[in-house]
């Protein structure tokens, strides 16, 4: 396992960028470059800044440098019978912890166990003045100061370079079963919505190709009883299915048309937008493959209070993320200026003027 702390090199590169007024493009494993808007600049390569700094299984906390490969972290956790409970998608073999957190990505367990941001406890950050700052910590409860570490999750590196991240980790469930049932999309939505108000050990639920999939996880007995209660057929060896869903390896994601991420309240009935649908997160995160114009999709989704991201296959210089309300954008611009006063990090990655 390669361990190296190159924070001083990174800091020097940021200082140089400030002096030269030259923007930087932050890069880890280069697995998520397709996400968000295109950004230009000299590459700030974080992939050499790697290694697990601390992992004490009894504390349920892991701290690692941001360039550490995600698979290395997952392997170390698995050895201790633990896991990243937000089940992050990798989208590539080289995925790093830093990129995963900067993009705020979570997998199928998210609606039942929490998101990437929910598990972040603290971070070491290199801001746009070249200062190394620490926020949060390695403890589960900590309310000293503003929650800057969670602000970094999903900021796509526009506020600073994540150097080190502390995460809460959880034990792996003793048992896991996946139930499958044939149904329509509307039936799946109401079935998955009902799961939210039942004390069931569910940790994933999706609708794909005319079938509703429900994953039960927990102690042997809990899973067995829940299966008896919910009914449905058990899929043997279901892990490859959830993996393919998480990594967008299912044939659904291979379409030539653009892929949209549609976020709505889970119980919202099927949306009438032309295209193919796959529902994850118990109906709360819906994937749409469609050749409808994005404006039409956004307008329709807005009527049910949702929002839309152009995930794959769209022009990467447009409104990839849902546009913000004007007063909220003002706060974003002021925050950007406060962390990155010279505007050197990942210019325009999430919005044109950030």
């Amino acid at each position, binding site marked *: 396992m390669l361990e190296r702390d190159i924070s001083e090199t990174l800091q020097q590169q940021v200082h140089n960028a400030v002096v030269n007024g030259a923007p930087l493009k932050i890069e880890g494993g280069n697995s998520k470059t397709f996400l968000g808007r295109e950004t230009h600049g000299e590459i700030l390569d974080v992939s050499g800044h790697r290694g697990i700094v601390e992992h004490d299984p009894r504390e349920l906390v892991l701290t690692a440098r941001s360039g550490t490969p995600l698979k290395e972290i997952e392997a170390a956790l698995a050895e201790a019978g633990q896991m990243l409970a937000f089940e992050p998608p990798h989208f590539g073999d080289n995925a790093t912890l830093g990129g995963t957190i900067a993009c705020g990505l979570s997998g199928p367990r998210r609606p039942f166990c929490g998101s990437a941001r929910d598990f972040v406890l603290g971070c070491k950050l290199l801001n746009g003045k070249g200062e190394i700052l620490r926020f949060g910590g390695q403890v589960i409860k900590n309310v*000293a100061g*503003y929650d800057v570490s969670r602000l970094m999750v*999903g900021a796509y590196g526009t506020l600073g370079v994540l150097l080190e991240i502390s995460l809460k980790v959880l034990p792996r469930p003793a048992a896991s079963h996946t139930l499958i049932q044939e149904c329509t999309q509307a039936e799946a939505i109401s079935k998955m*919505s009902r799961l939210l108000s039942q004390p069931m050990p569910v940790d994933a639920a999706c609708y794909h190709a005319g079938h509703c999939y429900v994953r039960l996880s927990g102690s042997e007995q809990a899973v067995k009883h829940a299966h008896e209660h919910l009914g449905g057929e058990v899929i043997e060896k279901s892990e490859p299915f959830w993996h393919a869903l998480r990594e967008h390896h299912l044939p659904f994601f291979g379409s030539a048309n653009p892929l949209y991420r549609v976020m709505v309240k889970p119980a919202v009935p099927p949306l009438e937008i032309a295209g193919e649908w796959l529902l994850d997160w118990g109906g709360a995160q819906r994937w749409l493959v469609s050749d409808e114009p994005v404006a039409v999709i956004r307008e329709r989704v807005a009527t049910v209070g949702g929002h839309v991201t152009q995930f794959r296959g769209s022009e990467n210089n447009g409104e990839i993320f849902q546009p913000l*309300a004007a007063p909220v954008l003002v706060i974003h611009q002021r925050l950007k200026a406060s962390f990155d006063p010279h505007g050197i990090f990942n210019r325009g990655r999430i919005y044109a003027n950030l």
Partner: protein
Amino acid sequence: MPVFKDGLPCNRDAHEDLIRKLRELLPPEAVLTDKEDLRPFECDGLSVYRRLPLVVVLPETIAQVQAIMRFCHALQVPVVARGAGTGLSGGALPLSDGVLLSLAKFKRILHIDPENAMATLQPGVRNLAISDAAAAYGLYYAPDPSSQIACTIGGNVAENSGGVHCLKYGLTVHNILMLKVVTMEGELLTIGAETLDSPGYDLLALMAGSEGMLAVIVEVTVKLLAKPERAQVLLAAFDDVYKAGEAVGAIIAAGIIPAGLEMMDKVAIHASEDYAHAGYPRDAEAILLCELDGTNAEVSEHIMKVREILHQGGATEVRTAANEAERQLFWKGRKSAFPAVGRISPDYYCMDGTIPRRQLPHVLRQISLWSEEYGLPVANVFHAGDGNLHPLILFDANKEGELVRTEEFGQRILQLCVEVGGSITGEHGVGMEKINQMCIQFKAPELIQFHAVKAAFDPAGLLNPGKAVPTLQRCAEFGAMHVHHGQLPHAELERF
């Protein structure tokens, strides 16, 4: 002469002008200025800090809040927002030259949506009232701070409140979806969404625990959870505090995440037992309360495992609550620990540090050494699952110098928490109380970054000024800044 803000002199005429204009914005009964009317607002749950505000306003619509904020912003008058006033760090302490904005009239539950397991609330809705209203659908709101009968959801968000179930169910930040807030400039913003995430920066995380410094919360949408099928509590007694600490680690190492995991030491056990008669073993040096919840099958399986771990860990006795009444009784003892300690000592000072759990033996040993050194007894109550330590220092404020010694003792404990990798506050917030200790936990550039975050929401610095984040000047005076070789870091920076 009173002043509105540093360097902004003001006189009685300006005060009268302010009050007159507030009366134009609000009905007469919603503007309080008489001393006896102001008195209930002079402090929050930390009553050692008291101050009368200039005026109290009690709006009942979002439009009124916006009008008040716009007006105060124009006049450069500081505003402190207040919920139920149960906070424990002086975060709602008023300013003598400012407006105290009470959200007490915003107490309606706007909508419960069982299909999507969420609820939309006005900020003045009491924490417990949410679970009461959701119970009809088999749902509840998870964070349960000890003040949940009285504290309100707006304050919970501002403080990022926890409770005894944090390890498994998270803090407030993990259980909210959307906020409506009014900025100091009077702008109404929607932060977060009814969906599981929202575009742009995670401002929701920033608002949680922002202690009323960024914006005034006027609406909250929370996530509701399905009520577990069963909850069961085990009580284990130990003849050694350190064995109890080890057992906590062993339960977690076995892959079990208890819903609650609480520890009390001998002083706390005796005080609670005298007060609540929960049947705690008086001869124990420490007890652990371990709550397991989930489906029937899961709870049964985990109880067996945990009992075994506790016995192996040297517990002298392990009891399982025989029924719901006994479960409540076990909890009653723990939940009444603070008032119980209040009965055995004229005063007590409650600390709120967090530490990595493995540091518990070291920290407890050090606290007991200091306890002897200062001649001040300590009762230890510990959210053991999440490393949140509440040492209660017993003292008598009427005894000359005892408060000063207590504060010094407390400060050493918090400093130790930071040294071992923890935090100066786990759930009570910084407010006024721990503002100096912020200088221990954070370096100057970090504090400067915090001030810049505040300025992004409140450029004029009028919302709850002087709380939560110290100025560098203050840290220099406190003398606890990270000073190396006699030099302040970033000596070139302006101290404000």
